[in-house]
């Protein structure tokens, strides 16, 4: 009978973290920028499978890493939000509750499963000026180990997220108009594409949570619209 080798818990965790972070860094970045009309979500996406999705009236989702894994998280989020809105009210569906639940499942997978999730996700919630206490935007980032951080102004996940964050930090301004925000996001995504041709508009996945829109505030912009906004 063979004896299993002893591996220290520190080593196990370090190995898992290295494995997961490599998986996340391999893909392209996705980013979120707060703009004048709400929240902009952007990703360079060469496929027709979406990296960005609608969760609820004011809540959006973006994921990077392994598609099947973050898309599964997106669907769980949609189910959670729709059930909560059905059982209580639409205004009871909040980003923070969802993020805590995400943190739980991603963290559990990291500590209990042999293979952690190779994902990083961002959950954004646009404020509603007509609801006292719900006026502010929120941006939450959840990493492969379940750790949560909240951000203001902008947030980058996946790929070269550190470099892109530094880039955005130096350029971002509060209340930036949507068109300029898309331009800024596009320039940021191009920073990551070393030596490659610039990011084409048709390869941009762009979604906006519009603060003033009634009901479902999530809007997916097609290439024509993105082109128009960039030209303006």
């Amino acid at each position, binding site marked *: 009978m063979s004896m299993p080798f002893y591996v220290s818990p520190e080593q196990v965790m370090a190995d898992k973290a290295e494995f997961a972070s490599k998986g996340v860094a391999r893909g392209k970045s996705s980013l979120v920028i707060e703009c004048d009309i709400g929240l902009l979500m952007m990703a360079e996406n060469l496929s027709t499978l*979406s990296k960005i*999705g*609608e*969760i609820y009236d004011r809540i959006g989702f973006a994921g990077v890493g392994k598609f099947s894994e973050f898309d599964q998280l997106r*669907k*769980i989020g*949609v*189910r*959670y939000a*729709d*059930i*909560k*809105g*059905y*059982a209580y009210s639409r205004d009871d569906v909040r980003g923070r*509750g969802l993020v805590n*639940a995400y943190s*739980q*499942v991603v963290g559990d997978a990291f500590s209990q499963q042999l293979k952690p999730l190779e994902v990083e996700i961002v959950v954004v919630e646009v404020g509603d000026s007509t609801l006292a206490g719900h006026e502010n935007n929120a941006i939450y980032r959840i990493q492969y180990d379940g750790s949560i951080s909240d951000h203001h102004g902008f947030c980058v996940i996946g790929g070269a997220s550190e470099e892109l964050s530094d880039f955005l930090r130096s350029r971002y301004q509060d209340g930036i108009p949507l068109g300029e925000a898309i331009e800024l996001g596009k320039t940021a995504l191009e920073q990551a594409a070393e030596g490659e041709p610039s990011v084409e508009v048709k390869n941009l996945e762009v979604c906006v949570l519009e603060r003033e829109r009634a009901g*479902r505030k999530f809007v997916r912009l097609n290439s024509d619209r993105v082109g128009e906004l960039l030209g303006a």
Partner: protein
Amino acid sequence: MQFGGKYQGSSFSELLEVDFSYLRLNWSDLVEGFDASVVPHGTTVMGFKYAEGVVIAGDRLATVGHRVASRDMEKVYPTDAYSLIAIAGAAGPAVEMARLMRIELEHYEKIEGEPLELEGKANKLSQMVRQNMPAAMQGLGVVPLFAGYDRRRKVGRLWGYDMTGGRYEETDYEATGSGGLYAAESLKKSHTLDATRTEALRMAVQALVDASDEDRATGGPDVVRGIYPNIDFCNQNGIERAPESEIEAVFRAIIAEQSDRRRGTS
């Protein structure tokens, strides 16, 4: 609240059934001999096609027996940007069905990344009506109308249902509820498929006036309280609810013409 369950599909009502059955009413728990006449009922709704798409309209009255339960009930609900449901029958289950239908369509769209076809939506509603059968047998029937603008075929489409979930696509018009027969009779005389928005609005108001004239459970326009029927247009631009001021003007013109005719001044 549970996060992540067994269900992996894209239907909200199945999700409720599988993972959240405690949020569903089990109709078999209803007692035998339950008196359905004690709950509010909604009365007259109708739908018809016009040149740009489809019109759905409903009166605002809910009744418990001979008593008014509500004078300003909503019976016409958008289920998404291009479809609508109108409900008649037991108000509680009917309003719940409209709400569930809206969530169902939105849920499918979010999970799958694209909306159901209009026919798929109509079929889904058929299943919901069928699921309500046990309640219908106890007097809590719901008979909806479903209409929308089919963006692939570029036409307005309309469906009527029966209590068993039978689904019938209509070519011209359909009305249901206690005053539905009278509304349909009125539309039979006035309806044309190429009607403009103005003509369509008049047809709708006239049909509701006729229904409320014959059926005591149907509420006509209430000028004293300022309560008017819900009349929604659905076409390639989405859904538009007719403003109350516009409905009031049409209503006043109709009754002025009727009284002039009786007095022989026109």
